């Protein structure tokens, strides 16, 4: 059983608890072990990068160094954390000068970072380590007829990490079809939702969310699947506000992909944090949930 150092990130502690729970449940069921990083710190999302690049990289490096000490590869379920971790790890190898600065600071916590581990987004573990076939084998409740829109958001695919496909990725669709569901094809699957603009330029952010919701709903989506706590909150929690602002009537459930994987694996909804969402998923999911578990 392959074991990873798991960096949940701040959002998963509470706001995205359902992502946390369902990540642990589903990986366990699929034979991958996630060991939570000891004493991790916030990686700064995109916000530290507004202030100082070296500091931002140092904060990320501390988490990486803790994983390196354990000799484990690194996995993050939050796209922003993942992007930060991926690039800091890469820069440690490519940029001696930066590495020297960072290691000097890390000494304060008795840590050192070489940058020799691999850094993954959680969805990468499903898409590549376990793979669509590996998931399919374990599906006991196929999500037949469920139309799921895979929402990649930005930071999983961008910036380009290693020359991979950034304009039309397909790995999310492959996971969804392995569950027996239908992956909705819509134009804006990698268009940005506005991110933390919600806090700083609300008008722009609400408009960006509206465009995404419209596209997904227009394409016949039952539920949107995300792979990032920030994407999930932006698309779900702000639907009411989009509706108030634009006179629309969106009410589309937004789940973490791990919750959908879990359902298909026959894991009890409660263990997957289903029921914590603001837009109810019962109308679309009830057919896949045993009566007594609803």
């Amino acid at each position, binding site marked *: 059983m392959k074991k990873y150092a798991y960096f949940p990130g701040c959002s998963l502690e509470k706001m995205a608890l359902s992502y946390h729970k369902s990540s642990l449940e589903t990986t366990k069921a699929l034979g991958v072990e996630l060991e939570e990083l000891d004493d991790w*710190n916030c990686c700064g999302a995109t916000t530290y*990068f507004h202030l100082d690049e070296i500091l931002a990289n140092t904060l990320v490096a501390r988490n990486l160094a803790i994983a390196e000490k354990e000799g484990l590869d690194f996995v993050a379920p939050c796209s922003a954390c993942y992007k930060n971790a991926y690039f800091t790890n890469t820069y440690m190898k490519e940029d001696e000068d930066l590495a020297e600065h960072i290691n000097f600071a890390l000494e304060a916590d008795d840590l050192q970072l070489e940058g020799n581990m691999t850094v993954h987004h959680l969805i990468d573990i499903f898409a590549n380590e376990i793979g669509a076939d590996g998931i399919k084998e374990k599906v006991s409740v196929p999500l037949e007829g469920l139309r799921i829109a895979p929402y990649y958001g930005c930071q999983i695919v*961008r910036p380009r990490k290693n020359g991979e496909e950034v304009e039309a990725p397909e790995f999310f669709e492959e996971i969804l079809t392995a569950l027996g569901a239908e992956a909705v094809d819509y134009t804006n699957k990698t*268009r940005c939702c506005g991110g933390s603009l919600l806090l*700083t330029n*609300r008008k722009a952010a609400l408009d960006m969310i509206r465009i995404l919701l419209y596209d997904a709903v227009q394409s016949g989506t039952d539920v949107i699947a995300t792979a990032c706590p920030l994407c999930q909150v932006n698309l779900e*929690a702000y639907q*009411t*506000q989009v509706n108030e602002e634009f006179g629309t009537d969106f009410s589309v459930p937004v789940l973490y992909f791990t919750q959908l994987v879990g359902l298909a694996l026959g894991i009890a909804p409660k263990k997957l944090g289903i029921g914590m969402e603001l837009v109810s998923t019962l109308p679309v999911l009830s057919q896949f949930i045993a009566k007594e578990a609803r």
Partner: protein
Amino acid sequence: MADTITFSQEISNLMYAAHGSPLNNCIQCGTCSGTCPAVEFMDQTPRRLIGMINADLKEDVLDANTSWVCASCYHCTVRCPAKIDIAGAMYAVKRYSIWNKTYSDDLVGPVFSETFMKTIVRSGRSYEPILAPTYIFGFGAKEFFQEVQGATKMMLKGRIPVLPSKIKRLKNFQSMIKHIIPMGEEE
């Protein structure tokens, strides 16, 4: 030579760890502006902003809301034919304006960034409710009300933490930060 450094050089220096091509490789093709999902909310398009940086139009660059409207989605960066990291340049302009305190008062972005930062230096973890009052002043009354509604709903669903958590080795963490920038007296 330190006193003859141009504005465009200063911005490039603030892109220390970004590994794109030099900004003056820009061919003004407009791909970035055409790609940007937030462009209609910017007073200068990304293409124009890069052009303005290269022309050392410091005042105009800093007056533009462009860098603060940028959502850091990197769509422009992956498409730029000249391989410029435009999103990285946006960060550099933000850094410049925070460090030089040149941002205009009606922008919420800088306040948000600084508050977020202070929270993390204090606890090692981010904590959204602490930030709320600070950035919320930037909203009008209607938006404020919507924000509170949203937060209450999340709270009822148990999705907003009541107290921030702290990391265990906080002292080490803070001293690590001081190795990089001398800031933030502990309270």
